[in-house]
């Protein structure tokens, strides 16, 4: 039953598709006592026998050419080599892309997840929500109004695009170099906030500028090869400049109406008015340069503050300039304007009016008429109407006079065109005598 001759017969029947059920059983059991190679050898014997018998009509001679085999093998080898090479290249590219993606995502994530000094200082729930941000962006002759409801891509300014992120913050995105200007005038991008507006703008290098109401900053179109970023600021802002991983550190220069501030990595609040500049450091380091002798200050610690004041002109016509030393203050006060609710307890009324003037654009002519010793206690929500501010000022005991949309605290203005004789006084007298009481003096017996 298991002798090779019998097995061969079964194999032959199998090859001819005539295997019976009994053959299948024998063949299956033969696999237990024959090695696989032995059975294959038997099969080859059968095939050779069949060839010899020419039972399959294989009289034709195919004569495979060895040269063709060698050439075909060479071709296959080269093809496999090329495919393998391409796969390796594709793999390297994919790994590279994944790596770059991971690095980019990691960097992006770090930028957003590592809380800054400001974020540690003011809780997210206490801040003015970014969804309320609004401002106007000027570039050349164009003006892009960013409202609370603006979303997505808002405009293109040369090789930069303005986007509004889902969280409400604005972002200036640098486009590829083919969008860059080749020559000609390159106007700055200017972001301006009106009364009761705030706006946070992420610059292409990852820096953040958060503008308070009634403020503006100019961002220059980048000059080719420029290492430093120069921004001009007027008003109040919170600035965050991230350190770059470049081998040559870049410096951000912030120009104000009175001096300039430089930093490579730092977070600070700036109040930059026409006559004074105040800087409060939250993190990092800021160098201040002011137009005064010995006008260089370095802020390195949290809460460090320096104030430059160009206040008055003396009798000789000289402008008095004052630069404070670096003092330590509560940094929270410097960023209180970024919060939803601002509480003022016994603060100088002058300061309060100035701040409200910036926020609500009250049109205050001057605060010099407000007595220095006057204070105010108030609680202002960022959505409060201007009437509430007027109410607080009046409640503090200060008289306000409105005229032509401007607010004065110095009493009513004299308008010669509108002077009239007081009731009961005859118009036969000289009007100026009446107003100055000279007619009354004349009536007094000497």
């Amino acid at each position, binding site marked *: 039953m298991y002798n090779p001759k019998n097995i061969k017969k079964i194999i032959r029947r199998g090859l001819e598709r005539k295997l019976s059920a009994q053959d299948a*059983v024998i063949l299956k059991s033969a696999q237990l006592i024959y090695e696989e190679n032995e059975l294959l050898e038997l099969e080859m014997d059968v095939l050779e026998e069949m060839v010899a018998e020419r039972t399959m009509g294989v009289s034709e001679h195919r004569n495979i050419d060895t040269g063709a085999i060698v050439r075909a*093998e060479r071709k296959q080898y080269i093809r496999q080599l090329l495919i393998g090479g391409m796969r390796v290249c594709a793999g390297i590219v994919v790994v590279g892309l994944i790596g770059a993606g991971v690095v980019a995502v990691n960097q992006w994530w770090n930028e957003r997840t590592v809380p800054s000094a400001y974020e540690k200082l003011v809780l997210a729930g206490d801040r003015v929500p970014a969804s309320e941000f609004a401002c106007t962006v000027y570039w050349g002759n164009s003006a892009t109004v960013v409202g609370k409801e603006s979303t997505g891509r808002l405009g293109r300014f040369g090789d930069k695009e303005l986007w509004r992120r889902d969280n409400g913050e604005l972002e200036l995105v640098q486009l590829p170099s083919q969008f860059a200007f080749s020559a000609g005038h390159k106007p700055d991008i200017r972001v301006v906030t009106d009364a009761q507006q705030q706006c946070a703008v992420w610059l292409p290098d990852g820096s953040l500028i958060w503008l308070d109401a009634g403020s503006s900053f100019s961002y220059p179109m980048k000059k080719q090869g420029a290492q430093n970023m120069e921004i001009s600021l007027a008003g109040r802002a919170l600035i965050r400049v991230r350190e770059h991983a470049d081998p040559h550190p870049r410096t951000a220069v912030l120009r104000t109406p009175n001096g300039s501030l430089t930093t490579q990595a730092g977070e600070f609040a700036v109040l930059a008015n026409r006559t004074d500049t105040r800087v409060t450091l939250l993190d990092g380091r800021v160098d201040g340069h002011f137009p005064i002798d010995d006008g260089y200050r370095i802020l390195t610690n949290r809460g460090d503050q320096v104030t430059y004041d160009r206040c008055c002109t003396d009798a000789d016509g000289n402008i008095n300039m004052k630069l404070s030393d670096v003092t330590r203050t509560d940094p929270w006060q410097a960023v209180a304007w970024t919060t939803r609710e601002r509480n003022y307890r016994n603060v100088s009324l002058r300061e309060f009016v100035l701040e409200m003037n910036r926020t609500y654009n009250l049109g205050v002519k001057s605060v010099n008429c407000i007595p220095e010793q006057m204070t105010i206690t108030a609680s202002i929500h960022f959505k409060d109407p201007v009437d509430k501010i007027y109410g607080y000022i009046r409640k503090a005991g200060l008289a306000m006079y409105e005229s032509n949309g401007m607010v004065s605290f110095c009493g009513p203005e004299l308008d010669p065109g509108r002077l009239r004789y007081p009731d009961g006084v005859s118009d036969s007298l000289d009007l100026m005598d009446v107003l100055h009481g000279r007619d009354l003096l004349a009536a007094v017996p000497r």
Partner: protein
Amino acid sequence: MDPYDTYTDKQLFESLAKTRKQREMDRLLKEIIRRYEKPLATKLRLTIPYDEDLIGLIVNDVFIDVWRKRRKLASVESPRAWLLKVLSFKMSDAIQKVKGREEYVDFTTNDYLEIPENHPDFDEERYEGMVQKIQRAVANMPVQRRVAFTMRVFDGLSIAGIARLRNLNEQTVKNHVGLVKQQLREMFRKGRKEGYK
């Protein structure tokens, strides 16, 4: 007359593996092709009688494989069995490529030569009976052989696995299994002569 005519298959494979002379390699390959082209083509014609082009391609592929792996051919124990195995792989590859075509479907389902138990009328009871007969025959053999054979054939362990488990040399295990199979074949042949079936 070509001197390679007198070479055994094993000698042909070993020579092809060793030689570095192109002319010699060509002649050795030519001899292998001469010997096996027809048997391999015959097997293919029995399987796929309707596609002469495909048969030609598959046979070509087998010899391309021989040429590509020529440096390793010295380790092939049974060249004829190896060629049939390569043919089987190449056939599977070719059928995979054209598996959408209906005429190739029965190739995989009707190949009872490789998998006899797939036969529609396969008699399990009869097969079990034959297995028991083999087991009874093995039971009278020396313990070492019997254990090695049982582990290899009935438990499906590898030679290396058995060697590790039994703490034996691999060659020893191979010898044990081979001897049992040889003895079984002898026994069944004698048994038939003696009316033992």
